[in-house]
């Protein structure tokens, strides 16, 4: 009796709060813009044609670039971090993971305002460098793409690390011992055992960072000077300012499709890893 109830509740929840809104977005993206309503008939693909406008194509490319850079920095910082954490005793590991989560107790908007104070012309970084005599004019850090990437990395870093840590957890130490016994060097063990087996974590972390990075309009608004740096800024402006809802929706659908594509990639790489060296490996 309880099981069907839970299933119905879950499906109802997903239907009402996930499926229905997404269908509305897709539906809106196919309508004709109307100044007084969300959109009007007839159905049209105009909004998607508008996406090909070089202006929006370049915003898309720019925000793909910023999101990719954010993901790359998360990877370079997060992989060694997760690797180190995985090697620690349970107590230390719990503590470090706890510290990673603590900032979430403060609203990310407030933390973004704090970043403004750190990066400002009279902020922590410029103040310290000037006091040390390393520079005599403050560096323009705030309101630049650098500040946006800084903010995105800061906010999204834990989301990258957590799936990675769990994939280090699943790593069977026996495999490393076996590699060692078979004469593999440190680098070879990392390259041929650790890296392939933690790849699902890397990909999961990248996905969780990459897409939200393109949508976090408030980071670009506060740290990037409210220029249209991210796709999220354009979407927000289309809905609130220009009130071209179909076009805003079409941009959102583009992001959703991108996400779906990346998830497929993830599933594919997961399968591939399981086949090579995992339980399903025919060669084992």
């Amino acid at each position, binding site marked *: 009796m309880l099981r069907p109830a839970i299933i119905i509740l879950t499906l109802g929840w997903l239907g009402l709060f996930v499926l229905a809104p997404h269908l509305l977005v897709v539906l809106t993206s196919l309508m004709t813009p109307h100044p007084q*309503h969300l959109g009007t008939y007839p159905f049209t693909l105009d909004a998607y044609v508008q996406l090909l406008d070089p202006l929006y194509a*370049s915003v898309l490319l720019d925000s793909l670039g910023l999101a990719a850079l954010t993901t790359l920095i998360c990877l370079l910082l997060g992989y060694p971090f997760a690797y180190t954490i995985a090697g620690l005793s349970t107590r230390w590991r719990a503590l470090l993971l706890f510290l990673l989560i603590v900032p979430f107790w403060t609203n990310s908007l407030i933390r973004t305002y704090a970043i403004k104070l750190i990066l400002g012309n009279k902020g922590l970084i410029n103040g310290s460098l000037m006091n040390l005599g390393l520079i005599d004019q403050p560096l323009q850090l705030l309101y630049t793409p650098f500040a946006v990437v800084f903010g995105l990395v800061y906010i999204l870093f834990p989301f990258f690390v957590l799936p990675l840590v769990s994939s280090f957890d699943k790593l069977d130490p026996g495999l490393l011992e076996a590699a060692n016994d078979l004469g593999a060097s440190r680098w070879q063990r990392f390259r041929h055992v650790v890296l392939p087996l933690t790849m699902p974590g890397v990909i999961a972390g990248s996905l969780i960072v990459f897409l939200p990075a393109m949508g976090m309009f408030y980071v670009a608004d506060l740290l990037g*000077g409210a220029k249209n740096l991210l796709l999220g800024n354009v979407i927000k402006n289309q809905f609130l300012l220009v009130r071209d809802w179909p076009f805003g929706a079409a941009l959102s659908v583009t992001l959703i499709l991108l996400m779906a594509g990346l998830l497929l990639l993830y599933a594919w790489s997961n399968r591939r890893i399981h086949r090579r060296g995992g339980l399903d490996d025919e060669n084992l």
Partner: protein
Amino acid sequence: MTIRTLSASLLFLFSLSAFAGGKVVVYNWAEYIPDGVLDDFTKETGIQVEYSTYENNEVMYAKLQLQKGKGYDVVVPSTYLVSKMRNEGLLHPLDKTKLTNLKHLDPDLLDKPYDPGNQFSLPYLWGSTAIGVNSEAVDPKTITAWQDLWDPKWQGKLLLTDDVREVFHMAYKVLGFSTNTTDPEQIRQAYEKLQTLMPNVLVFNADAPREPFLAGDVNLGMIWSGEAAMANAENPAIHYVYPSEGAGFWIDSLVIPAGAENVANAHAFIDYMLRPEVAAKTVEAIGYASPNLAGKALLDEATRTNPIIFPAEDVIRNGEFQQDIGPAAVELLNGYWEKLKTGR
């Protein structure tokens, strides 16, 4: 089911929670009311205030229009939106018999073309948009005109307000056009003029332009009179320059949306805001000019003669007040605005 009926039924669901009496929902510009006024109002009248803020007219209008004027009891649009919203039936007529403090308002600011006879709106505050200069970094004497912002030496230095009408005002004035032009050719020329300004722009600010000035992140750019007055009070090095081509002027008015659910409370709130002592407190705290003559009389000498808050007659005459420019021109402006903010 169409999207319209769906959103209407969603709204109905939300409005069910609003049955409890004794409240007024106020939707105002960010930083546009002094601390404590809302509490005082609640203490005196027992009416709870639900308060939220917006950053520009367009965002407020988008929400109200989507909800068919429901959800809020008092909003504070600028003149050009008052006439637009009035024409679209989004405003509820004011009952003057409930507004006993109406008599304190400056007749010069009443009965304007955007709302003849003040059937739907009463002026709350007015102010200007001009140039802010921090004399610690920039000599204020070298900045006398909007055109000075175009100087290549300010590359990556300027603050602009995140407001399409105000930013275009600069270009219109430099080119000698009206800030209320609807001529597509003039709008295009202004857009091209602004394109050449974009390399100088560091940041668009929507909520509090004084903060980047005070934090030292910006030393030159657009700023609103009230923000400039507050910044100047905190750091006298921050000056307010009325550009020779003419500053932008605006009036923000108290209105009741057509779908307001607490119309009586909304009147009570508006009447409270029109009290001379509340008006005086508002000018002192947030630095914009009040149309309330009795309130102005209560101000101390320094505030009453502060040229940032109350500019001289010729400065006002040299500037221009915003008016509604119709949907076609707005659409054109918004299209160009998106391009400018993308850096093109």
